[in-house]
């Protein structure tokens, strides 16, 4: 079937054309799409590095890449995926597009700062790509000193500058969201009526605003050490080798929550819509986001249990790390309870959301092994860690991101994608993911350290399994890329509300007009009021 262009109304995509109308736009929806294109490109770069790593590790001798090249691949993978994909993915793409629409606003509070944040991101991304193509960086995304400050001969400085710059893009986005959520809610949209997506982005924005400057300071200190030999981190110059790790994880642990909290927000939207129920325990789910954001700042020391930090510090960080697990557990229980007596559809976004709950549950529970001191000593620095955080970051964040893209794609593009392919892709990704990362739990328990370019023979079988899974996962990611692009031209028109969803963003045409709403909506009910009388099915 071939459907004509959607010309029935003027919307944000057809209001004007040409490259300038995109590069100078201040429309939050267009900026969201600029981010979508950029983070997708960076995902492909980071994914390519992962492909090379998994190919290398099929054989214990690791003959494909030189060890030095392998080290640059895992560094590239980590830096690109974390700073340029996972951190911006949900907030800067979906958040940008949806935060104003969900609260009934015309745009974010500072539209030009919003555009600036994309340019700042772009500069950071380009500098990183230059650094990668120009010899690469081999410190891992963690930049541990004194290796990064004194010993590495790679482009540490350039990548450090790139990460420093990109951080400001996060800060600007966070600032924009906080002000927008405080000041621009539609009449009647009280805090207790906000969609949980908004609560999650609010909590995330707080972390971005408060945590990212610490990363910036840390990177400046690293640069000072590298250029001027300031003697901050290298003991040979009178510095403290562990100081860097304290500063780095003070940002980078909360950064984990920057990556997962928005995903939790997405899942709350999907679960409610596709079971046609209000969320079970709205207040508990909303406040657990804030609890995670606050506690997340107090657990950085659990990355350092084996550094020789005081055993008493270890005890406190261990206790706090167990504590931060509880709000996450509460969320999982509440999402599950939301399904009870629902009217559950099995559309593609729902499959991603259910996949998220399952994988996030396993990722969260395996985190207990690492909060627990005695087991962390054995598992720290092994593939167990790698498996654990991929269950959270890939099984959690990317599943939710894809679920969100599938859910709001009809709103973004005005078109529907082929549902069967979408469900098939969700299944392939779920299977490929588990095949890739489950064996890594076993590898870690057996003692295989991470970041090894070659390894003893006994670890081969599990590595081959993991690499095989990665190829399935790669296919799984390629399928949506194809049919979503296809749907832009050939997909049937979606209409304003194809899922029968409740949020304000569904009360306006798809794609929405530039000003989002023809008239400012007035909110008279709580979020997810699926049982209310005016519930309209499309």
């Amino acid at each position, binding site marked *: 079937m071939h459907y004509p262009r959607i010309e029935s109304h003027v919307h944000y995509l057809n209001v004007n054309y040409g490259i300038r109308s995109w590069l100078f736009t201040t429309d939050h929806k267009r900026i969201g799409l600029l981010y979508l294109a950029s983070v997708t490109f960076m995902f492909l770069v980071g994914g390519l590095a992962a492909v090379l790593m998994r190919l290398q590790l099929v054989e214990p001798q*690791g003959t494909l890449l030189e*060890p030095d090249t392998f*080290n640059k691949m895992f560094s590239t993978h980590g830096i690109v995926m974390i700073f340029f994909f996972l951190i911006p993915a949900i907030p800067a793409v979906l958040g940008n597009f949806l935060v104003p629409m969900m609260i009934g606003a015309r745009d974010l509070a500072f539209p030009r700062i919003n555009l600036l944040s994309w340019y700042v991101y772009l500069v950071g991304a380009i500098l990183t790509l230059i650094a990668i193509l120009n010899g690469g960086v*081999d410190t891992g995304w963690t930049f*541990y000193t004194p*290796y990064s400050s*004194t*010993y590495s001969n790679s482009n540490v400085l350039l990548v450090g500058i790139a990460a420093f710059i990109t951080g400001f893009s996060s800060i600007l986005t966070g600032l924009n969201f906080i002000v927008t959520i405080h000041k621009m809610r539609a009449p009647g949209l009280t805090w207790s009526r906000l969609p949980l997506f908004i609560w999650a982005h609010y909590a995330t924005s707080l972390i971005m605003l408060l945590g990212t400057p610490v990363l910036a300071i840390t990177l400046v200190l690293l640069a000072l050490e590298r250029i001027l030999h300031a003697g901050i981190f290298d*003991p040979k110059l009178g510095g403290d*080798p562990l100081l860097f790790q304290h500063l780095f994880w003070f940002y980078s642990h909360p950064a984990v929550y920057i990556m997962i909290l928005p995903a939790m927000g997405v899942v709350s939207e999907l679960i409610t819509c596709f*079971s*046609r*129920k209000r969320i*079970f*325990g*709205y*207040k*508990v789910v909303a406040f657990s986001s804030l609890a995670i954001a606050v506690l997340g700042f107090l657990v950085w020391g659990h990355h350092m249990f*084996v*550094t*020789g*930090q*005081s055993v008493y510090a*270890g*005890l406190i960080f*261990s206790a706090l790390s*167990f504590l931060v*697990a*509880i709000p996450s557990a509460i969320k999982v*229980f509440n999402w*599950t*309870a939301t*399904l*009870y007596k*629902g*009217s*559950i*559809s*099995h559309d593609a976004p729902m499959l991603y959301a259910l996949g998220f709950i*399952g994988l996030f*549950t*396993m990722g969260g*529970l395996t985190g*207990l092994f690492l909060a*627990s001191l*005695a*087991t962390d*000593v*054995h598992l720290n620095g*092994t593939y167990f860690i790698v498996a654990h955080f991929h269950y959270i970051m890939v099984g959690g964040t990317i599943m939710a991101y894809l679920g969100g893209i599938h859910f709001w794609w009809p709103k973004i593009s005005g078109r529907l994608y082929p549902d069967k392919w979408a469900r098939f892709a969700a299944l392939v990704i779920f299977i490929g993911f588990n095949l890739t990362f489950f064996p890594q739990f076993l590898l870690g*328990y*057996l*003692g295989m*350290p991470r*970041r*090894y*370019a070659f390894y003893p023979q006994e670890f081969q*079988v599990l590595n081959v399994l993991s690499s095989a899974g990665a190829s399935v996962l790669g296919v799984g990611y390629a399928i949506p890329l194809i049919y979503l692009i296809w749907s832009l031209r050939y997909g049937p028109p979606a209409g304003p509300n194809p899922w029968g969803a409740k949020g304000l963003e569904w009360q306006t045409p798809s794609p929405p007009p530039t000003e989002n709403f023809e008239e400012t909506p007035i909110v008279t009910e709580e979020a997810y009021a699926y*049982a209310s009388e005016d519930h309209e*099915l499309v």
Partner: protein
Amino acid sequence: MWPKIPFQPDQASTVARDVDQIYLFLTGVTVFFSVIIFAAIFYFVVKYRRRSEHEKPPEIEGSLTLEVTWTVVPALITVVVFVWSSSVYFHNARPPRSSMEIFAIGKQWMWQLQHPEGPREINELHVPVNVPIQITMTSEDVIHDFYIPAFRVKKDVLPGRYTSIWFQATKTGEYHFFCAQYCGAEHAGMIGRVHVMEPADYAAWLAGGNRGETMEKRAETIEKRGENLFTRLGCNMCHAPDGKGRGPSLVKVFGKRVKLNNGRTVTADEAYLRASILTPYKEVVAGYAPQMPTFQGQVSEEQVLQLIAYIKSLGAEQQSSTGSKQP
């Protein structure tokens, strides 16, 4: 033929069993909760699948009882794991007094291990079974990490500091040790083997009977080397044993509380001794002038360890504690 997939690493130290019990318990917790969640999702998704577009599910706001239950139950489980795991960790943080002490130096990209009796090994470590062994470690360059999976022990090896691990092997055999902190190009090659031997075999090995090729010829004890160095560097000129020299006597100084001329009191542990050799002007013993020259750049980390071993051999107040010691 399908190769065997291993699921459990060798369990070859007294600590390993304790750690594995916690690991097993946590695995049980993970499986239990995953199964509950998976089963509930699966059941709900099938049972409450949408049968008509006009279904109106009932309004359910939440339940305080349920919220409290699924807050308190996980909280209690984490408290149990926290207390249990921390007590194992605490126990493992303190090496027994009777431990045999081995020194290790990590450098890009090899391990150098020094036995008290003198033999020095590269990427190999021979130890007797059923004897507590403490390894005191430092790095010559970047951060490394000494990890023996079969013993479930691991600790970062830091430049400018001493850290230590201890273990008591329970099974003879050969086990891997790894560098578990990324340290540069050949990080993956920074691995070696622990050879756990019967005490008699170990004694024979020490005597030079069946040493590997990486071994040097029968060497002097580490204390003896330290003593020679002590004399060669002229330390004995000032640090006279009777305390009448220009520097304090070092007899029985190890482990003692030492009063400094800035009013502070420190314990004379490995880190303090190392700092006193490399940056002697920073922490001067009360009653003495800051006149000792620095030996920074003149002695290697290995020689510092020899000097410390010699000073320890002059008698000690007590065993040092573990954990990171900042110079």
